[in-house]
């Protein structure tokens, strides 16, 4: 058996020498270097809602692609760049989760259009990368109204009031007027205005009328005292006349004592002349804008 095996090995070696003349028996091959370069990565940004109202929270998420089995490492830095430099906010480097995701809740406190960009730091397996710009709108509305209204005592004046959608704001806005002086009123043609986001460019303002009324000096007849004059109709009823005269006399005494209730005339001086701060509050969801108007009531 051993003799057979030895014969076979010799036969194979012999054939190899004949067929592969380069092979030198008894020598090692040269080392082969395989270089594996870092892969290209990509980052994508999205938010929980592309249009939020000012004051409303938002969550921005960055995803790094591709993900590697066993975990992608590295950090992502997100920056929300406002059109006004002061509004720009940036995150600290946030480590990627195992699934290649980063979540950031930026404090977008001011109305603006933010360009959000995510930068991936890369790791040993992936190159750094930067996301395309994601546009985040922080919407609001603006209230337009006069700073001062001058009105003659006893008169009414109507002023236009406007609301304008900013940064794709849409929704209903409630209006409340307060702080009016005595004997005056503030009425809005519409207490609620609906704003629509502009499809292109700036939104057109929506207007309504605000009417302020003041009261002038008035005298009204409000009742009647128990006067002797009221007995005139009893002239012919002589039997009743004298007792009623006595009754009237007693009523007179009671009236002098301050016990009589009725009055014939009531004077009201109306809205006092002066300067008053009127407050207009416009509210929509969590947004509330308080504007002040100076109301000047002047004498006739």
């Amino acid at each position, binding site marked *: 058996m051993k003799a057979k095996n030895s014969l076979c090995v010799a036969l194979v070696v012999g054939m190899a020498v004949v067929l592969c003349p380069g092979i030198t028996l008894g020598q090692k091959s040269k080392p082969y270097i395989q270089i594996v370069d870092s892969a290209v990565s990509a980052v994508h940004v999205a938010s929980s809602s592309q249009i939020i109202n000012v004051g409303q929270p938002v969550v921005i998420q960055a995803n790094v692609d591709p993900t590697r089995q066993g975990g992608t490492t590295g950090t992502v830095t997100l920056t929300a760049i406002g059109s006004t430099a002061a509004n720009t906010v940036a995150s600290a480097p946030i480590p990627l989760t195992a699934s290649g995701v980063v979540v950031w809740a930026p404090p977008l406190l001011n109305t603006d259009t933010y360009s959000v960009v995510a930068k991936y730091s890369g790791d040993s397996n992936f190159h750094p990368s930067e996301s395309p710009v994601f546009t985040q709108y922080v919407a609001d509305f603006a209230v337009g109204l006069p700073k001062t209204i001058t009105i003659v005592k006893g008169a009414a004046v109507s002023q236009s009031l406007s609301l304008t959608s900013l940064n794709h704001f849409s929704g209903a806005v409630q209006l409340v007027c307060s702080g009016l002086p*005595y004997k005056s009123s503030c009425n809005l043609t519409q207490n609620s205005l609906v704003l629509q986001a502009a499809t292109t460019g700036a939104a057109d303002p929506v207007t309504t009328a605000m009417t302020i009324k003041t009261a002038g*000096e*008035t*005298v009204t*007849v*409000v009742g009647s*005292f128990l*006067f*002797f*004059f009221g*007995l*005139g109709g009893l*002239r012919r009823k002589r039997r009743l006349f*004298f007792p009623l*005269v*006595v009754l*009237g*006399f007693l009523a*007179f*005494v009671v*009236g*002098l004592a301050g016990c009589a209730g009725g*009055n*014939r*005339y*009531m*004077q*009201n*001086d109306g809205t*006092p002349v002066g300067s008053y701060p009127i407050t207009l509050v416009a509210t929509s969801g969590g947004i509330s804008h308080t504007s002040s108007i100076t109301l000047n009531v002047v004498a006739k």
Partner: protein
Amino acid sequence: MKRVPFFCIAILLLFFGTGEILSAQARKQLGYDWQPSQVSATYQFTLDDYSFQSESGSVQRTRLNGGGLEYASRKLYPWEAVVSAQYSGGQPLGQHLLTLEGGAGYCRGYKRWVPFGRVLAGTARTSSNDDMYLYKGAKWGFAVGTSAGVDFKLTPHFGVRAFQLQNQYLPFGSQGSVYWSFSSGITYHFHS
């Protein structure tokens, strides 16, 4: 205005009625004493039929304080010829009221007591610091006053007015105004 004379008659009837009731019981004991002419100076408290509604919503009634001077000639006793001047002012509207009136009266003396009744007519002027009646300035008008009261003689020359209740109808306001007054003061009698 048609009712004004009737009201005056009512006051007089009240006066006479009261007097007659008193005199019916004492007619036998009492004689009607002659009364001399007299002048009186009185303090006067007046209630208007006018109120003011303040900014707080409270209603403040106009109350006036003042005084009056009156001369009653009794040459035709028991009838009197009376002239009177009264002035008073008060709040809340800063009203000033002046009345100048003359007219007739009737009185009877029962020992020291002298009840009387009067009907006067004349002119009145009202003004205020707050456009009362919506008048921007002072306003004059025709006044009718009716009153009844009792004087009490302390000495032959001096006495007191125990009380005088007065109604004045003035033409102020859209329906005219009624002023009620209570007066009390001193009297001086002229003995010739």
